[in-house]
Structure formats: structure tokens, C-alpha cells
């Protein structure tokens, strides 16, 4: 191979605004995630509850049309569209499990692949900072998780208003949109830190995937074992799932699933995020680009 006669030409374009320098990282991460085997199926499965709950809102509003399906003509409890309905969507075991599975697919390799293939030096020799790098990587997780949390939540409210053709629902539950936004952000931010933190501790994405899934399950199993032995609700604080459920119940102003102060679950969730941020800061260092 020789140097092409065509030669090298200088580029006379202009560089873009540096404020969005993390955006290509996110776009690229999303693109790569969609290329993964079975991801589209998984994504579809993660959105199935949203479709079912949306159908539930429609059925609840058009009860007259569906009377023939109900034996005594009374509205079933689960079709009462209120904060409990939303809480049921956001904190059910299946949804949380699917979020973890999405995280396994989209988050496991985000940093571990860069560590494995020495790509960090390619990133940090560009005009991007460590903050841009994390923001770009975290936004990949945020993108997928918000699609299954915030987006359906807001669509539920909107559709409820559309189907009922009145604002009565909003005036009855004025804080509901904030609960939806608050819980969606909480769970998304938590899983972003959770995913990035675990992705930075090992260079093997498969191992990271096992860690992401395993830690979630293990924490729940641990809670089950200790609760089984000691019958103490405080062991629920060991479980990632139970802490998220507790926080969800508080944000949707519902009865707490565990007899523990709600703020302890928030402390654990925030504490985990802080720990994740600290580890990420220590593990990813731009200065090591030049070895």
C-alpha cells in the first residue's frame, strides 16, 4: 500500500459547540445497543406492560363498552386509575426486572469495553472532559430507561385526559405528574450509576453483565433469607428492588410496602449513587491516556 496520490486535503469546516460534546457518545452507544442480538425483543418485552396499562386506562374510561366482560357490572379495583395504578406500573417486579435486563444489554459494556480495548485514550485525547464522557455514557442508559418509565407515565396521564375529555383527573391528583417524573428520574439515575459503576470495575462485559444481574438478585435473596430468619422488616434495606419499591410507594403517596422509614431507602439509593460516582472518578482518569 502506498500513499494515495489523491493526498491529504485540509478541512475548512467549523467545529461545533462544545456544550454538546457528549452527544456523539450517547448516539453511538444507542446505535450499538440496538445492534445487539435479542435486544429489540427485550425492548419490546420491556414495553409490553406500558401497552397493557395503557389499555387498562382505555378500558376504565370506556367501561360502558366493556360491561359485558364484567360479571356484576362493577369496576374492578385494579382499573381504578389513580396514583396506585401508576405505582403498580412503575414498581411491579416485572418492570424492575426488565429495567435490570435493559441495563445488562445497554450498560454492561459501556465502560468495560473501553477499558478492555484501551479506548479511553481515544476519548480523552479529544476535547472532551471526564464529565462529558460520563454524561455521554450515562445518557445511553437514561435514554432506554426513560423510554420505559417516564415516557409511558406521561403518556398514561395524557391518554387519561384524552379518553376522559376533561381535566378532572389532574385536578384530583395534581401531584401525579411530579410523582411520575420524580420516580422515573430516581430509578433512572440510580440504574445509571449502578450500571456505570459495575461496568468500570471489570474489563469483561460478560462478567459485568453477571454482576449487574447478580447483585440485583443477590440483594433480594439476601433480604429474603434474613427476613425469613429474623422476621425484621429492616432487612428490606438490603434489597435493591425493595428500596426502589419503598421509594416508589413514597413518591406516589401510597402505603409503604415495608415498615421502615421511607428516607432510609432514599439514603441507600443516594448512597449507592455517591459510591458509584466516587469509584468512577477514581477508575477513569484522563491523565492515563499517555502511558
Amino acid at each position, binding site marked *: 500500500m502506498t500513499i494515495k496520490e489523491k493526498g491529504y486535503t485540509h*478541512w475548512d469546516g467549523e*467545529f461545533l459547540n462544545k456544550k454538546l460534546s457528549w452527544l456523539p457518545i450517547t448516539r453511538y452507544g444507542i446505535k450499538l445497543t440496538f445492534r445487539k442480538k435479542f435486544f429489540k425483543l427485550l425492548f419490546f418485552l420491556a414495553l409490553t406492560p406500558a401497552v397493557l396499562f395503557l389499555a387498562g386506562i382505555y378500558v376504565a374510561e370506556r367501561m360502558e363498552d366493556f360491561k359485558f366482560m364484567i360479571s356484576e357490572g362493577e369496576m374492578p379495583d385494579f382499573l381504578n386509575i389513580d396514583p396506585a395504578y401508576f405505582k403498580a406500573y412503575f414498581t411491579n417486579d416485572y418492570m424492575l426486572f426488565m429495567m435490570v435486563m435493559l441495563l445488562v444489554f445497554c450498560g454492561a459494556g459501556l465502560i468495560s469495553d*473501553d477499558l478492555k480495548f484501551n479506548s479511553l485514550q481515544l476519548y*480523552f*485525547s*479529544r*476535547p472532551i472532559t471526564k464529565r462529558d464522557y460520563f454524561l455521554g455514557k450515562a445518557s445511553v442508559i437514561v435514554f432506554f430507561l426513560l423510554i420505559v418509565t417516564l415516557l409511558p407515565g406521561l403518556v398514561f396521564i395524557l391518554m387519561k385526559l384524552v379518553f376522559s375529555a376533561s381535566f378532572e383527573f389532574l385536578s384530583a391528583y395534581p401531584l401525579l405528574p411530579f410523582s411520575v417524573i420524580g420516580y422515573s428520574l430516581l430509578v433512572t439515575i440510580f440504574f445509571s450509576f449502578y450500571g456505570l459503576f459495575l461496568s468500570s470495575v471489570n474489563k469483561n462485559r460478560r462478567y459485568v453483565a453477571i454482576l449487574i444481574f447478580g447483585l440485583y438478585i443477590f440483594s433480594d435473596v439476601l433480604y429474603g433469607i434474613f427476613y425469613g430468619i429474623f422476621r425484621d422488616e429492616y432487612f428490606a434495606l438490603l434489597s435493591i428492588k425493595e428500596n426502589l419499591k419503598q421509594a416508589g410507594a413514597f413518591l406516589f403517596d401510597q402505603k409503604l410496602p415495608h415498615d421502615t422509614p421511607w428516607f432510609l431507602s432514599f439514603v441507600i439509593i443516594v448512597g449507592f449513587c455517591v459510591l458509584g460516582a466516587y469509584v468512577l472518578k477514581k477508575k477513569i482518569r484522563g491523565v492515563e*491516556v*499517555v*502511558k
Partner: protein
Amino acid sequence: MSVEIKDLHFSYGKLKALEGVDLSLPSGAIGLLGPNGAGKSTLLRILLGFLKPERGEGRVLGYNIKTQQRQIRRYVGYMPEDDCLITNVDAVAFTSYLGELSGMPRQEAMKRAHEVLFYVGLEESRYRNLETYSSGMRQRLKLAQALVHDPKLIFLDEPTSGLDPQGRQEILDLIKDISSKKDIQVLISSHILSDIEAVCSYVLILNKGKVANQGDLQALKQLDYSLYELKVKGETESIVDKLKAMECRIEKTEDGMLKVYMPPGKSAQEIFRVATAGGHQVRHFVKSQTSLEDLFAEVVGVD
């Protein structure tokens, strides 16, 4: 001057990595040399804006190394020594992605990626997955990613490491072309002195955190000392000792030859005088061409 540094100091804790480094690098290809621990990586880290110097001032392409690190990295290209890639993509996606990270608009980055991949000779394999690339192709790709945003200055860290002779020559040809015809300044850090000699017109030698020598390569090779190669009959210890006493540096080669580096102001006759006085029979004597290797050994003080 693309790089100007004055009185640069940097320490890792108690370990002083750079002590009072002054630089003023001209255009063209510049070789950065030094033994391990000399401060080359620290200097590159500072020039790329990853470390803030404790003392001293500096500008890269006119940007302050203390306050304008992002701008520096926008206009500087970096080709790392390590094998590094991004998985599951082809060369076009890889290069354009890195162009985007440099701040180029998406379409422009894509167009430019094709151009630089053509330039480095990867046009036929640009749609192949990177994981199938050979070492030589990966080196070319690393060069392409460093060029994609059209930098004004490019840092090449061991650009020929791990390459076979043909691959090495091809990369060197590219570097020569970039530095001589494309108006891009090149700073090459390498342990392969012959590569530096083949490409660079100016060298900077660091040793123990200080600039041991810098200047035009040809001038440096000729001005500092004269090199003679000789072979003497019998034992060589006594003549070596006497020449060392005259401040000559001596190297023994594997075939029994003595390489004598004469300091300025001393002539070849001094060697014969010492040989005659010691009763040594000189069997072979030739004035040798000094190489960068000789200069490096002289400056750094290693054999």
C-alpha cells in the same frame, strides 16, 4: 513556533518528573527521545493538557497549557502507542465517530473519515470490522483517527511499534509526507532511533526530567564530537583507560571494535599517540559517521 515552554516543572509527589524544561519547537517533524523515566510521557501529558505544570509557562499552537486544554486537544491529534479500538464497528464508523468527538459536524466527520482512510491506504478495508485488522492496519487506523479533524500538530507515540519492516517503512513514509507536504507539525516519541533519524529534522532529548539536548539533527550529530572506530591487537584495557582519561567515551562492539567518541578540540592523532605510547598495534582505523544512536548514548550517558 507551535510549542513554546518556559521553565516547566512537574512532580509526582516527591518524584520530580520535569525540572526547568525550556522548549521552542520549530515546524516539521520533531523527535522526542529519552530513556524510560526521562519525562517524555509527562511532557506529552502536559502538552495535551492533562496535567497542569507546577511552575512555568507554555503554549501549544498559541493556547495556554494551563487554561486552554480543551482548545489544545481540539487542534492537536494524538496517535497512542497502545493498541486501541472501539468494538463492533468498521473503520469508517470508528474514524468518523472520533471526528465527531473532536467537534466536527456528523456529515463532515463521515466525509472526512473516508478521505483520511484513503490517505492512509485503508480504502479497501474501510468497511471491515476493526477486530479483523492486522497490526499494520491498526497503526494506519490510529494515524487516520489522529488526522480526521485536520490537526495542526500531531503527537505520535511509538508509531512503528509492532510492525514488520515493510509496514514500518510505509508508516514512516506517511509521517514524512504529513510533516513535509501537509503543513502539519509532527512530534514523534519513539525508542526506535532509526525511525526518528529517518523522519525528523529536529530532536529533543530528555534525560532525568531535563532537556539534555535539542536542535537540528544533522548539526547535533556533527558538532559535538568525532567518532572513530579502531581495532587494536591484543588486550585493549590499557588504551581504553588512557582514552577515557582524555575524556573520550569508549564503546566496545561485539566484534572487538572500539568506538571512540572524541570530545571537541581533540584530533585523531591523540589516539595514535596513546596507542604508540602504550605499544598497541592499530589494525583498523576509520572515521565513522555519527548516528542518532551515538548522539543519544552520548547525551544520556549510556552505552
